[in-house]
């Protein structure tokens, strides 16, 4: 028989090494599958339930393909791959009913927990779906939600200090296992890496739990698989899922133990010390005794700040202006709105006593300083007359009437240049 050796030295049915590490927060984990790396974080929120499911909590999955993972991933774009992966994750974890959503109900029809699972791909070296499904289920197992109690109509939410947060109730742990097919299904590989994925003909993903129950199955790439092949794959998947589940449980127990004993936990502990690329430094005291002198020295050397004389103008309570403003050389951007305001004559300003005279003139000028109005038959064509008119008020009323008679399609375009008298 042909002995296949893969590029990274694995045999056909070998998985890459799986490493699971937990953060300091509950529900936070990083799963490494060889060099593929996924960050998972679970969070929760109290929301009102969906109308047709009044007593069920909501599960939400979101896998993000960060640009960090591979340069080809663009931020803010829903690629086909991303949609496919998200859908597969939902089928694997939500539709398999591995989380008891009814236990997430607080008040039927009013308040339920929404559990949100955020997954970030940090490094893409093939087989994203397996790594993501492991990260999702590990994060869900690790997560603790705040405790709530309901007494009559009163719902009390307890902080972690008052009552220990409670874990989610998880029925089973579905895990995806991927198979890559080559040469129309002649060759089969488990856990393809990125290079193998690029040349594969077809992909079969089987999600299964440790009781050998298939949760979802998906074949993509357009190859015809024989019944035997699918059966063989499901057998292999059963073995792999059992191994992975054991590994997950061991990792979870380990983290639990360390937290209970008050030992050190979190990502800092999972950094391998022996690596030359890693380095740690203990808490460092900083001598700040001379800081005060230094600061005084700098301030004494610095030039004293300029005396700022500001006379704030309070137009209306809550808003004000410093300075008087200069002429706007940019033309008017939002003319039509302003027009209404100015004409309305409802400019009530509370003016500070000291500058009453200055601004008083200003306000009175606004109405009469309006410059010319331009009419245009088409909306594209805009003409601006910059010469100030002798009697603008009169013309404006006339022109507006004129346009209104012309019908609704012809919109008057008014441009004016505001000019202020310098007080």
């Amino acid at each position, binding site marked *: 028989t042909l002995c296949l050796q893969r590029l990274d030295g694995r045999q056909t049915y070998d998985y890459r090494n799986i490493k699971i590490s937990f*953060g*300091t*927060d509950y529900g*936070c984990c*990083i799963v490494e599958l060889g060099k593929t*790396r996924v*960050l998972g*974080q679970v*969070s929760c929120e109290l929301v009102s339930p969906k109308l047709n499911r009044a007593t069920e909590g909501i599960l939400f999955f979101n896998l*993000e393909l*960060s*640009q*960090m993972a591979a*340069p080809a991933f663009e931020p803010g774009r829903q690629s086909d791959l991303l949609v496919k992966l998200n859908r597969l994750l939902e089928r694997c974890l939500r539709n398999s009913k591995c989380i008891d959503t009814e236990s997430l109900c607080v008040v039927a029809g009013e308040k339920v927990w929404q559990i*949100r699972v*955020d997954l*970030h791909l*940090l*490094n*893409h*070296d093939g087989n994203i779906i397996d790594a993501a499904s492991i990260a999702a289920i590990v994060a869900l197992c690790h997560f603790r939600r705040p405790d709530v109690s309901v007494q009559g109509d009163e719902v009390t939410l307890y902080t972690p200090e008052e009552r220990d947060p409670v874990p989610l109730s998880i029925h089973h742990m579905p895990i995806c296992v991927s198979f890559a097919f080559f040469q129309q299904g002649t060759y089969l590989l488990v856990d393809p890496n990125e290079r193998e994925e690029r040349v594969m003909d077809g992909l079969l993903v089987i999600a299964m739990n440790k009781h050998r129950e298939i949760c979802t199955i998906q074949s993509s790439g357009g190859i015809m698989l024989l019944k035997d092949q699918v059966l063989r794959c499901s057998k292999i998947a059963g073995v792999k899922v059992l191994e992975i589940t054991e590994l997950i449980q061991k990792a979870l127990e380990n983290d639990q133990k360390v937290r209970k004993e008050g030992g050190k936990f*979190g*990502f*800092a502990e999972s*950094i*391998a010390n022996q*690596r*030359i*690329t*890693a*380095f*740690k*430094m203990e*808490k*460092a*005291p*900083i001598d*700040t005794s001379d*800081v*005060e002198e230094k*600061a*005084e020295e*700098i*301030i004494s050397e610095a030039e004293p*700040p300029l005396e700022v004389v*500001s006379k*704030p103008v309070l*137009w209306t309570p*809550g*808003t*004000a*202006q*410093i300075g008087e*403003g*200069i002429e*706007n050389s*940019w033309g008017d951007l939002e003319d039509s709105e302003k027009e209404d*305001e100015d004409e309305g004559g409802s400019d009530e300003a509370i003016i500070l006593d000291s500058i009453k005279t200055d601004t008083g003139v200003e306000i009175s000028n606004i109405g009469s300083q309006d410059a010319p109005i331009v009419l245009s038959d088409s909306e594209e064509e805009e003409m601006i007359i910059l010469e100030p008119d002798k009697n603008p008020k009169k013309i404006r009323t006339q022109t507006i009437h004129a346009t209104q008679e012309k019908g609704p399609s012809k919109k008057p375009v008014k441009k004016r240049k*505001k000019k*202020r008298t310098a007080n």
Partner: protein
Amino acid sequence: MAFLDSLGGSRRDQIVSKRRDTCGRGSRRAPHPSWRLLIGYAVCTQARASGRKRQSLLHVGSPAMEESMQTETKVRPESGAESGPRSPSCTLRHFACEQNLLSRPDGSASFLQGDTSVLAGVYGPAEVKVRKEIFNKATLEVILRPKIGLPGVAEKSRERLIRNTCEAVVLGALHPRTSITVVLQVISDAGSLLACCLNAACMALVDAGVPMRALFCGVTCALDSDGTFMLDPTAKQEKEARAVLTFALDSVERKLLMSTTKGLYSDAELQQCLAAAQTASQHVFRFYRESLQRRYSKS
């Protein structure tokens, strides 16, 4: 405040100047600290909003926005006579860093400060999209991704701060018509997140071998209501603080590359925080040096 004038004093663009006298009064009467914090926050958000508005109107570049933010935060001109007692020991939390942990990016680093952790990946100098191409220097892009949900305004503003810092030190002119992309992923936020992002970005840039005129680091200071300041605050300390100041400093002259602040503080307090950050930066740079020595020395 020059930009207010350039807006032609249309009523909608006028900024709140009430801020000024409430702040003045507030500091003398010393009301409830949380109230002051609230005002300070409002000031900052307003400053940002007005800065943005101005940008959209006049199409000016980023330095102007920074400027406006800096002027806004310069409130409370009285001297820091109330600086009060200070805790004798300011400490940095434990640091950890691992470089080159991702296989796909050209450079990567995960940086931990206490429980705060950020992962950074750098691609570059690489091919650049035609519309982003700059003919005489590299296009620097920074992407910051939050852990939960989609990136929002807070992330965009941080991205900009980090990008401006990187641009100040990266020798982009050596690689014209290329792109340098820094992708940052928040792994956990337990205070001083921006400082941690800056440190992670620097270590990843070093790992990628991007030419830089100096290294940079981020240091966050928090000012308490009674005038004590702490370095590298935790999330809880940041929440209780009257003001939080983050500085980016370069390794050659310890000069300020970027500063962003939130809350109220005096001139003297700003200078004190800056001086403390400069002292702390020596420790961070020593950490950089030792971790690189460990990696590249032969023994």
